[in-house]
């Protein structure tokens, strides 16, 4: 028999349970296995009722985020051997309501995402016949990092402010807002600012910084939000100095 490792997973069924519980399984410990492989092993061979989300298995679809030994992780990019000799505890992402086993409810995030208007806003659209908006590699570089977000929500699981106040827009949504703000093709900065400079927007963030630490795609939402605060403050000063409509 190959080496084994104990996998402890959260079980919860809204139809049956009042509170989640932990169930342990022994799974083979293979060098090339990620935590997701172990979960699939359980689902395929031991207990088909274990529920979790996954799809791409290459760290890009963003669906397999869970807490692994208390840290928010993409389970398809987290190797089992890093936790040997075990046990490895896999729990649903923190700060979200648990819907079933390892699955959490994330519609809250989707609502917030729409609210920050993550699309190009322009006063006047360029007709297709006039070709592309020119954008130099440097201009692309200013926002590219923030465009790498896969919406895996690990940052929400790491942000205590979101845990304490679910109204807070949260790291990824704010980083994506900033992604469009910094895009040279966009003219919607001030429209977004009106939404995001409310209390639940950028000002809710107290710069805990853990969002950036756990982000698997190096998006740096903490940086994005602080930069956003700086911009918002500059805009505010501008509107003080030019009260008759210095909105840019």
């Amino acid at each position: 028999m190959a080496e084994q490792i104990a996998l402890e997973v959260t079980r919860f069924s809204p139809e049956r349970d009042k509170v989640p519980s932990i169930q342990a399984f022994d799974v083979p410990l293979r060098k090339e296995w990620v935590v997701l492989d172990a979960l699939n092993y359980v689902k395929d061979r031991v207990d088909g009722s274990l529920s979790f989300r996954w799809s791409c298995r290459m760290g890009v679809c963003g669906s397999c985020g869970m807490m692994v030994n208390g840290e928010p992780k993409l389970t398809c990019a987290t190797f089992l051997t890093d936790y040997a000799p075990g046990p490895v505890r896999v729990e649903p992402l923190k700060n979200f309501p648990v819907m079933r086993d390892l699955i959490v409810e994330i519609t809250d995030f989707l609502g917030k995402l729409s609210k920050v208007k993550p699309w190009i806003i322009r006063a006047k659209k360029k007709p297709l016949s006039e070709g592309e908006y020119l954008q130099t590699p440097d201009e692309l570089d200013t926002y590219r990092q923030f465009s790498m977000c896969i919406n895996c929500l690990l940052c929400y699981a790491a942000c205590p402010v979101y845990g304490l106040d679910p109204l807070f827009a949260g790291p990824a949504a704010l980083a994506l807002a900033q992604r469009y703000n910094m895009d040279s093709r966009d003219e919607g900065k001030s429209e977004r600012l009106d939404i995001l400079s409310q209390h639940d927007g950028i000002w809710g963030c107290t710069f805990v910084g853990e969002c950036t630490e756990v982000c698997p795609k190096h998006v740096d939402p903490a940086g994005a939000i602080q930069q956003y605060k700086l911009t918002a403050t500059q805009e505010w000063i501008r509107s003080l100095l030019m009260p008759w409509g210095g909105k840019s």
Partner: protein
Amino acid sequence: MTKRSNEPLLWLLFSVGGVVAALLIPVHLFLFGIAFPLGWLNAPSYDALLALARGPAGRVYLLVFCILPLFHWAHRFRYTLYDGLQIKHLNELVNTFCYGGAIVGAIVATYLVVRIP
């Protein structure tokens, strides 16, 4: 402006206060709070200190040194109370305490600085 709230002002004061606190408090605290009382270094005389404080530059310096870090404290402490104690629902109370405290501190500081002979 009403719609955009006064958060930018508070954040600005917080940030500038944070910079002042980071740049200046360590040396002050080390000298006046530790080194002089422990006798590691010779404390300046009363007259020398008064001479430093009474000039216009000294007065402005003292105002900046005291007022901005108080607003830095107010902002940070407000959020620490919100999050650490989970009392965001008491936000009016917390805000009054924190920013009110900073304003009172600022008034006291101004009063004192003006009164330096």
